[in-house]
């Protein structure tokens, strides 16, 4: 009986590894989604004092999409503590420097800029979290025939300069 109960306990508090594809996702919306998995809010055994959070592997963090002109306008502030040590870094600049940035230590969140995840982590994964929004298809992904057949609203004059 005791052995069965022990196994039951292990099963209930088993940590699941999820994988999330961050390409073309809004990081602020994804954060809300991933928070649920990292804290264990998606389990009916949740309690703030029990440790039931899951692991999440985020892939393709290089391809996240910030809404509007956030890349240009969002600023991250850092102060070294010395006089004149304040720095303001724009979001695009910071993303170029480190696309796997995390604000605070979240030990169960593993972020990778592309699909190259170590096999030791990837073999744990047993679930995939669905994306919030569909990934748009870029123009270079369409074949030439499809582009030609795509209905046009107007025919541009020949001397019109496309920028």
């Amino acid at each position, binding site marked *: 009986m005791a052995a069965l109960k022990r196994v039951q306990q292990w099963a209930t508090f088993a940590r699941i590894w999820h994988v999330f594809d961050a390409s073309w996702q809004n990081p602020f919306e994804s954060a809300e989604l991933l928070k649920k998995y990292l804290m264990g809010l998606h389990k*009916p055994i949740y309690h703030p004092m029990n440790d039931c959070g899951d692991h999440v592997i985020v892939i393709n963090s290089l391809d996240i999409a910030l809404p509007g002109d956030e890349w240009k306008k969002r600023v991250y502030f850092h102060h070294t503590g010395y006089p004149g040590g304040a720095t303001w870094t724009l979001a695009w600049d910071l993303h170029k420097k480190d696309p796997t940035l995390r604000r605070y230590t979240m030990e169960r969140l593993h972020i990778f800029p592309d699909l190259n995840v170590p096999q030791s982590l990837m073999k744990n994964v047993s679930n995939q979290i669905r994306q919030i929004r569909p990934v748009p298809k870029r123009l270079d992904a369409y074949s030439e025939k499809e582009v030609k057949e795509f209905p046009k609203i107007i025919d541009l004059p020949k001397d019109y300069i496309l920028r």
Partner: protein
Amino acid sequence: MVFTTAINCIRARGPDEFWRKRQIFRLAAHYLGRRRNCYSVTIKIVHRALVYATKGRHLRKEDMKSLHETRITAGCEQHNITFKDFKEGLARCDILLNRRSLADLAAWEPYSFKALTDIAKQRLDDDGLSRSK
């Protein structure tokens, strides 16, 4: 005998000072330092603790309510129904289980909970209400 003098204005100090203070000291027995030894400090701390206790009785209920809601939401999400729709569906079926028993069912009797979500979903579909995804 009727007193017409100032004796009526004297307020009774209550029972013996030692016992009155001991009552307070007993509540402060688990504090440290002057908080448990000096009455003038103790009375202040004990009064504050009692106020916290009064507030805490309400806060505890709110905390438990939000915890149960979190758990039910987690249970509902697995079965593709939101907490709001779930409550609505159950209310329409006259299933008046409170949050606590629903949360207990979600954790301890998962298949009964699944049956409840199925009932709620079926009822919402029968009544022609669209379920929010």
